[in-house]
C-alpha cells in the first residue's frame, strides 16, 4: 500500500536537493467519518530519515499539520555524483517504507 517516490535534482543554492513523495493519508485525528460519525484516528508519518551513503544527514519530523501525501524536500549540499541516497520513514502506527536512489 505504501509507496515512496524519490527525485534528486540539482539545487540552485549548490549541491543537490532530494524530493520525496510518500503516499500517506496523514490523518489528524480530528476528521469524522461522514457515514458513521466516528472520529478517524490519527495516522501520520512521524520521522523521515535521509541518508547519504548510509550516513544520516537529516531527519524530518512530521506531524498532523503536514498535508496528505507529503512532499518533502531536503538539501544535501555535500553529495557527489554516484552517492547513494536512502530515505526511510516510520509512522505512528509503526508502518514504514523506504526508497533508494543514486545521485546522477
Amino acid at each position, binding site marked *: 500500500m505504501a509507496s515512496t517516490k524519490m527525485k534528486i535534482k540539482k539545487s540552485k543554492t549548490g549541491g543537490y536537493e532530494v*524530493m520525496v513523495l510518500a503516499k500517506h493519508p496523514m490523518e489528524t485525528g480530528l476528521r469524522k467519518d461522514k457515514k458513521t460519525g466516528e472520529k478517524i484516528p490519527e495516522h501520520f508519518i512521524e520521522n523521515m*530519515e535521509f541518508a547519504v551513503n548510509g550516513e544520516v544527514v537529516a531527519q524530518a519530523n512530521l506531524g498532523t499539520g503536514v498535508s496528505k501525501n507529503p512532499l*518533502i524536500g531536503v538539501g544535501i549540499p555535500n553529495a557527489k555524483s554516484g552517492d547513494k541516497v536512502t530515505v526511510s520513514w516510520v509512522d505512528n502506527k509503526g508502518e*514504514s517504507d523506504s526508497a533508494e536512489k543514486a545521485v546522477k
Partner: protein
Amino acid sequence: MKRRIFLKGSLAAGTIAVAASAGLLTPTRVLASAWPKAAFESETEAEALQAFFGTSDVEQSDQVSIKAPLQAENGAVVPIKVMTSLENVEGIAICAIKNPRPYTTSLRVSGGGGGLYSTRIKMGQTSPVNCYVKAGGKLYMASQEIKVTVGGCGG
C-alpha cells in the same frame, strides 16, 4: 497511558528489528532522537521552540528566506520552502501560528545536511507562518503571512 507508550515503543522497536534483519539499516551513526512529541503537542509557539530547540530566544534574520504563496486557495495543501545561507545549520522548524497546534514540522540536520527544507502543510486559517533556523547554536527566524481561503484542518 503507560501501557500505550510501552506498546508504541515496542511497535517501533519491532519495525526497526525487521528493517535491520532485512539489511535495510546499516549500523552507522543514527541521530539520537525520537519524534519530538512535546513540541508537536504544545499549544504555543514558545513552548514548542523550547521543547525542540531548547531555547526560545529568536533573532530576525534576512538570511532565512521563505518561498510560499501569498494566498493559498486550499488550506489543506500549502507549499512552504525554507532556505538559508547560514552556516552550520542544526535544525529547521515551521510553525503556522494560528493552527490548533502551531508547531507543524521540523528538520534535524547533522553533518553534511543543508539549509533547505520544503514541505506542504495544512493551515486552518489565514495566519503568519514562522520559519525558524537554528545555526551555530543560535535561533533565527523569518515570517510570512499566508492568506487562506478555505481552511484545511479537520473537515
